[in-house]
């Protein structure tokens, strides 16, 4: 997947929350196609980077999608340019049914892929009349992913820790869904489960304390235990040798 053209370009992204300088001149680019990993320890600024791209936090810098400037657009306008978002804590609407959550996500003018999402997650079809608040964590994650996959005109999906807290079986299902989704749109994936990340992603961008610390290929990062340990923590040690 090397040599693909740049789809998303982020230049000098700075985010302040209160007095803290959370993101410091974050510059990154995501190539079209496949899954790019956005990695880093807890609190490194991964979630804030995704929220900054969408405009959910105040930020300075420049963000372009396929050459189109997104920086001064409102959040809903950024999304309408073809940016799907799967937030870290799922953020399904608990008082709405599964079907209502999906209906809300339908974007006018976008081809809708109900067949795809119900094919990937049959449980959602079975539970379409159920309130999202009564779903299990895994089902809520499926619904959150489904909302982003539903719109056929999404160019890029920003997916934040989709396997967090899920059982191994559901992790597998989510990983399979991401691989399928990657055939249809580019994915920028934050993933703390390193074996999952290693299996899914090609390019990686590593954040450390709000700055870009590393960009390269996942095999290079995982193949260097010292590097992996430094940026990703102890859990990363040895990962390079146990690719699953």
């Amino acid at each position, binding site marked *: 997947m090397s040599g693909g053209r740049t789809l998303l370009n982020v230049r000098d992204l700075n985010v302040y929350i209160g007095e803290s300088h959370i993101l410091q001149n974050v510059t990154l680019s995501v190539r079209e196609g496949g899954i790019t990993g956005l990695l880093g320890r807890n609190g490194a600024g991964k979630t804030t980077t995704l929220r900054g791209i*969408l405009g*959910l936090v105040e930020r300075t810098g420049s963000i372009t999608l396929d050459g189109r400037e997104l920086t001064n657009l*409102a*959040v*809903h306008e950024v*999304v*309408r340019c073809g940016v799907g*978002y799967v*937030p870290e804590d799922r*953020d399904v*609407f*608990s*008082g*709405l049914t599964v079907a*209502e959550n999906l*209906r*809300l*996500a339908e*974007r006018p003018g976008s081809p809708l892929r109900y067949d795809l999402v119900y094919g990937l997650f049959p449980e959602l079809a079975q539970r379409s009349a159920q309130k999202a608040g009564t779903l299990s964590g895994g089902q809520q994650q499926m619904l959150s992913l489904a*909302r982003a996959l539903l*719109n056929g005109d999404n160019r890029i999906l920003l997916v934040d820790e989709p396997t967090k807290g899920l059982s191994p079986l559901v992790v597998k299902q989510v990983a399979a869904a991401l691989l399928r989704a990657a055939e249809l749109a580019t994915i920028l994936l934050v993933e703390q489960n390193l074996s999952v990340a290693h299996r899914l992603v090609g390019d990686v961008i590593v954040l450390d304390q709000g700055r870009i610390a590393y960009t390269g290929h996942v095999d290079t990062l995982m193949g260097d235990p010292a590097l992996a340990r430094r940026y990703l923590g102890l859990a990363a040690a040895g990962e390079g040798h146990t690719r699953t």
Partner: protein
Amino acid sequence: MSTIVLLALTGLGLGALYFLVASGLSLIWGLMRVLNFAHGAFFTVAAYAAWTAQGALHGLPSPWMRWFAALLIGITIGALFATLTEVLLIRRLYREQIGQVLVTVGLALATLALVQGGFGSDPKQVQLPAWMTATTAVAGAAIPNTRLLAILAAALVLIALLLFLQHTRYGLIVRAGVENRAMVSALGIDVQRAFTLVFAIGGAAAGLAGVLGGAYYGTVDPVRGTEMLIFAFIVVVIGGLGSVTGSAAAAVIVGLLQQFLNYYAAPGVGDFAVVLLLAGVLLTRPGGLAGGVL
């Protein structure tokens, strides 16, 4: 027995007015996290607009037609005033809670001063069709028809609001927005438009309450909007901020409690009991009686 029926229906009538003011207040808080202290001003301006219209429309052949035309004008003015308030004032201040309080309190005070300046501080008699000054016998009690009218109107508004929330796209957006506004915009939805719509709906309901209040009391009064606002806020908190059915239930409870205790205990005890109930709910169920927006 007939006293109980009279008190119950009068309390329900009062609760109906509270609900009409509280439902908009509750949705505005639920969706936008704005404490709209100007909501009583929507009530007042609509009441005076209807009163003025009735005087101006003496060409219309029947009292009913005049009253009905004035009702429509009151509702429209309420909706318009609320829409302008959102577009011109509140929209700039969504991130500034203190600013919202100052602006909406300021608007409420300015409206009161303008109405008092233009119409005087004394209540004005409202012309009503004969039916509205008459009573209907219900289980042996002579119930003023305006109580029944207020109850009917509030019930219709409750049904309309629930249908709107459950069966329209904007209703879906409002329900979702009450839970998590940011995520609604992250789905590509311009949540701002829903804000304006909710203000317009709230203003229309408050305007309806203003006109019905004129019929209920037989007068329009510059300070009644403020009284309504206070009890509507209490209703909203007891019912659960952001919940429409919660507001309806709380409005009924508050209206009945007020009427019965003011009659059987002593005047004023009912109002005091309402405040005690508010404190009790805040201590035991800080989220209010209801959970979600419905």
